[in-house]
Structure formats: structure tokens, C-alpha cells
């Protein structure tokens, strides 16, 4: 990939630079739509928006190849869509329909897709990391060169299992890229209050290359990933990358109702000025990569896709209550297992 090509400040292939914008736009509009659907009770419970963090998802996933893997988090729509999951089927999943990526059994926090190497988003902080290491190790025992992006947040750096997983990757030469999305907060607690040293210092003692990157710049994210994935493919080295980013929304869609207040207006404003959905297309336009009307065309295409996703999801059937036992086990339900009575006797 030519970083320092004819396009000056951007330095990425134009097609890639533009596709990063498209991904970010798709994720942003998908999630804004989800927020409305949660309000209208069309999506149950809450969703964790990644609004503000789209550059990380777009840059990381663009650097992955067809045989690579990723593990995602509770804030995972960007990772999933960036990896290429069909938005109509993801939307159907969030609405609990049979046409969803996971037949409505998983919902927002549990989208998984074997064909895309998505080994599950995860509702448990940090829990996807050892799964990422095991899958990547296994995929490479047959001579493959797969790598894996394991996403987690700044809060997850205080989960023991993340450190266990990083150590396993180091001792067994498993090229997992530990992608730490540092948005400075875990729910309402700030990183500096909860973690004794900067994140990259914490990760630095594990035995893998560690870097910190501007997570509001999809190009920088992508570059760091390209370096880490190339190294990993070559010799199995895992990497740790901190992406400095920010979520513009609350922890999830219900946060506003709780009235919590833990971030200053000035801080939020300073990060909003760096919104990659604004700054990136500006840079592309300035660099002559996006022609006049180019952004609007992408936006319109995304809008149509989102509208189609919602329409598809709304028109999709709900699962039948009688199916409740069916998918608990790989062998299916039958012969009284799982137990077929629970409402009486």
C-alpha cells in the first residue's frame, strides 16, 4: 500500500481512502438509526453506540484479509459492518428477527459470522481476547497465515483475562493484534482514575510491540494495522495498538435517562471538532481524492442501504416461541433434552 503516493497528506490509495469514508458513514448512520429504533421500542433493551469511534473500526477492518479473524465487543457495530457484514441482516439481528445474522438469538452484543471470520461480538468486557488467540493459533496450525484483530476498550485493560490472553499470544507466537479502543471512559469511570499507568505502559511488559495511534484518523489507524498484520503474518508476532478515540454518545442509549454527568462540555467539544466524519472527507476533498459531489453520492447510497435495512428487518418474521429450545446445543433439542417442561409440573 503506498503511504506516500501522489496524494500528499492522505497517502493511501484513493479507492481505499474513499472506502474508509464510506465505512465510517455507514456505521454512523446505522447507529444513529439504531438510536431512533431503540427510542421507538423497535430494538429492545439498549445499544452501545460507537459514534465518534468509527475511524478505528474502518481503519482496522480495512487492513484485514479474507482469511483473517476478529473478535468484537459490546460496542461492536462498527467492527461488524466494517468487516463486511450485510447491514440488512445485522439490522434484522438487532430487531430480533429470524433473518438476522444470528437468527435473532444474539442481538446487538453477539453478532458472529464464520464466513467473515467474526468470532462473536461479546457482552463481557475483555472476554473475547483469549478466544481470538485460540482461533488464530488453530487457523495457523494448518500452515495458514491468518491474523486477528481483537477489539476491547480502555476499561478492559483491567481485566485479568486480557493479560492472560496477551501472554498466551506471546509465548505461542500467535499474531493477534490487540486493538485497544481508548475512549477514555469505562461507563462513567475515567481511565486515569482507574488505571495506574498509561495503557501502553501496562501492555508494554507483556513482550509484544506496542504503539499508540490517533484513533480519529482512519489513515493512521490503517497504517498501524498494516504494519502489525504484516509482522504478524510473517513471524507470528502479536501486537498491541492503542487507538486514542472518543465516543460522542453516552455509554449506551439509556445513559441520558440516568442523568449521570462525568464529562465536561469543553472536553466533548474538543473531540467533536475532530469528528472523522467531517475531517476525513475534508482531507480527501483537499487532496483531490473526492471529487465534487463524491461525498454526497456516498451519503445517498448509504442512506438507501440503511432505509432498506430497516425495511427488511421490519418485514422479517419473529422466531416462533416453540423454537426456544432448538439452538441451545449443536445436536439440537430432542428426547427430552433440554428438559421440555418449565412452565408447570
Amino acid at each position, binding site marked *: 500500500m503506498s503511504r506516500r503516493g501522489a496524494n500528499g497528506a492522505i497517502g493511501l490509495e484513493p479507492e481505499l481512502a474513499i472506502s474508509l469514508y464510506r465505512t465510517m458513514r455507514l456505521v454512523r448512520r446505522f447507529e444513529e438509526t439504531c438510536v431512533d429504533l431503540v427510542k421507538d421500542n423497535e430494538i429492545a433493551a439498549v445499544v452501545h453506540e460507537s459514534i465518534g469511534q468509527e475511524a478505528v473500526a474502518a481503519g482496522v477492518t480495512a487492513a484485514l484479509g479474507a482469511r483473517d*479473524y476478529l473478535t468484537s465487543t459490546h460496542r461492536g457495530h462498527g467492527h461488524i459492518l466494517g468487516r463486511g457484514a450485510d447491514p440488512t441482516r445485522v439490522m434484522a439481528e438487532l430487531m430480533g428477527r429470524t433473518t*438476522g*445474522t*444470528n*437468527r*435473532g*438469538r*444474539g442481538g446487538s452484543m*453477539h453478532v*458472529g*459470522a*464464520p464466513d467473515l471470520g467474526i*468470532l*462473536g461480538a*461479546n457482552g*463481557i468486557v475483555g*472476554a473475547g*481476547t*483469549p*478466544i*481470538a*488467540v*485460540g*482461533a*488464530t*493459533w*488453530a*487457523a495457523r*496450525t494448518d500452515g495458514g497465515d491468518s491474523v486477528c484483530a481483537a477489539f476491547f476498550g480502555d476499561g478492559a485493560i483491567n481485566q*485479568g*483475562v486480557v493479560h*492472560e*490472553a496477551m*501472554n*498466551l499470544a506471546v*509465548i*505461542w507466537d500467535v499474531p493477534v493484534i490487540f486493538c485497544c479502543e481508548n475512549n477514555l471512559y469505562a461507563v462513567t469511570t475515567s481511565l486515569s482514575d482507574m488505571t495506574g499507568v498509561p495503557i501502553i505502559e501496562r501492555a508494554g511488559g507483556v513482550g509484544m510491540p506496542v504503539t499508540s495511534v490517533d484513533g480519529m484518523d482512519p489513515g493512521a489507524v490503517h497504517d498501524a494495522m498494516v504494519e502489525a498484520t504484516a509482522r504478524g503474518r510473517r513471524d507470528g508476532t502479536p501486537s498491541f495498538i492503542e487507538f486514542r478515540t472518543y465516543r460522542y454518545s453516552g455509554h449506551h442509549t439509556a445513559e441520558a435517562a440516568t442523568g449521570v454527568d462525568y464529562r465536561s462540555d469543553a472536553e466533548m467539544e474538543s473531540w467533536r471538532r475532530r469528528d472523522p466524519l467531517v475531517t476525513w472527507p475534508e482531507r480527501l476533498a483537499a487532496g483531490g481524492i473526492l471529487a465534487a459531489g463524491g461525498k454526497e453520492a456516498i451519503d445517498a447510497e448509504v442512506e438507501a442501504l440503511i432505509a432498506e435495512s430497516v425495511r427488511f428487518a421490519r418485514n422479517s418474521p419473529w422466531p416462533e416461541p416453540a423454537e426456544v429450545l432448538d*439452538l*441451545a*446445543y*449443536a*445436536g439440537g433439542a430432542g*428426547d*427430552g*433434552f*433440554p428438559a421440555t417442561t418449565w412452565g408447570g*409440573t
Partner: protein
Amino acid sequence: MARLRYLEALRKALRDEMIRDDSVIVLGEDVEAGARGMTTGLRKEFGAERVKDTPISEAGFVGFATGAALVGKRPVVEFQINTMIFQSFDQVVNQAAKFHLMSGGEFRVPVTYVFAASGAAFGNAAQHSDHPYPYLLHAGVKTVMPATADDAYGLMLSAIRDDDPVALFSPALIQGRRAEVPDEPTAVPLGVGRVRRPGGDVTVVAAGPTIPIALRVADKMAAEGIELEVWDPRSLLPLDRDGIARSVTKTGRLAVIDDANRTCGFAAEVAAFAASELFGHLRAPVQRVTRADVPISFSLPLEAAALPTAETLEKAIRATLAGSAS
């Protein structure tokens, strides 16, 4: 046929499956040296890619096994100490066991967890003496607890071949015992119990380390003309409810002896099943013989006092014979 110790039977099953299926791998603490006996020699025979010592990172290596299973391996994870399930509880019950459903059936997690030397045995004290299978049953994890070497062999085969996570408990008190084991692989299906000793007076449901206790009591009471039917579920989940029903329908009396805590335990489940679905056949209240609901003390008299014993079982059987529902 070969006469094998229980632990040797587990090892033989594991080895046979590793020969038959390249995707079977073994992970755990000190498995290369074979510290627990089940993996002795396997590292040498199958190599570093298939037999891996892990750091003392139970959550990490259980999650690792899940990941490997998602892309086609069949990992066998040996827990060095059965209470270390607690370290990895999230990875077992909230990750591996739910993956199939959460993914809408897109992923399978064919992992076997083997709990070596499980349960209490002579002074291991509170943190090493639990027999924690009820936690797994409650969470819907398929769980087997063979009582003899032949079943250890057959259930280990089925556990490895199963496409869901399966936990296998190898109780300390019985894993040194011998039995005939077939030379050719014979899988014992999950969810099929076995009559260990036929009898018409009282059904005694026992499992794992309580099987020898139940058989001893049965011998003793047979001398008085009381015939116990000792019934071994072998697999605690799925549970062969039909098998229990057949036996209780015949005897009309049920005592359950179980080497785990009483509250919400395996015995509680069997008793509840009998009370709600076999009520019409019961001629006396169901008796439960379990551990006391306390941590196990180090001091041997206190350890013994908290465990189910032949004496407490005999008392319970006499109570069910004396009691009458009609």
C-alpha cells in the same frame, strides 16, 4: 479386553481419539509431563502442536480452547484441580456454553473439560475439596461423571466427539479403580444411565464416587432381604429421566446419594423430578443424602462428617422403607 485403571482408561480414550482425529488437541497445566496421569506420554507421541502446557491462566486457556474449537479443533482441556473451574467460570458458562445459541447456530464449540481428581479426598481442605458439577448442570453444560473404567473410556470418547462443550469429572476416590475396558473403541452415549445392581425394593440413584458406597450398602442390606436397585445416571446432563422413571415405577421408593452440596444440587433435581413426575408411583417421600452445605474442613473427622456416607445412606433407605405415602 484389558483390565485398566479408570485413569488409564481416560488416557486410552484420549489417545485413541487423537490417533483417529487430528483435530483433537490437549491443553492444561503440566500436561506435557503428565502430572495428572491422563496425558502421560502424549507429548512425545503427538508433538508440541497437539499437547500443550499452559501457563496458570485458567480463564485464558479455556477461552483459547473455545477459539480453537470455533475454527475446527477439538480441544481437551485438563483442569489440574477441579475447583479451578471458578477461575474460568465466565469462559465456560458465559462464553463456550452459550456460543452456539448466541450465534444462532453459526458456531459450535466441541471442547471437553476434564476435571482430574475431583471431589474431596482425605484432608485437602476447603479450597480443593468441592465437587462443583452442579454449577455446570445449572448453567446447562453437558456433564458426565463416570464411576468405572469402562464408562470412563466410553464417556470420554463421547465427550470428545460431542459438538458441544462437555465436562467430565474424574473423582479422586475412584480414579484408581480397575475394570474391563474393550480394546476397540465403544462410546457410551451421553444421557443413558445404567443399572449397577438390580433390585425391587428401593431405587438408589448414585453417581461417581457414591456408586461404591451404594453398592456396599446394597450388599449389606441384601443380607436382610432388602433389594436395592443401584442406578447410575453416568451423565448428569443430559439426564436419563426415563431410566429413573423405569426404576422408580418398579420399586416405588427413591433415595439419591450425591457427592455435592444439597441446596440446588443434583440430588435436588432428581428428587424434584420424581416428586412432580413420578408422584403416583412413590410409596414414601424421596430421601436425599448429600454433602452438608458447608465448606469442607481440613480435620478428617469434620471432613467425613460433611460427606455422604454408607451410614447416612443406609439410614435414609430405612427411612424410605418405614415411611409410607398411602
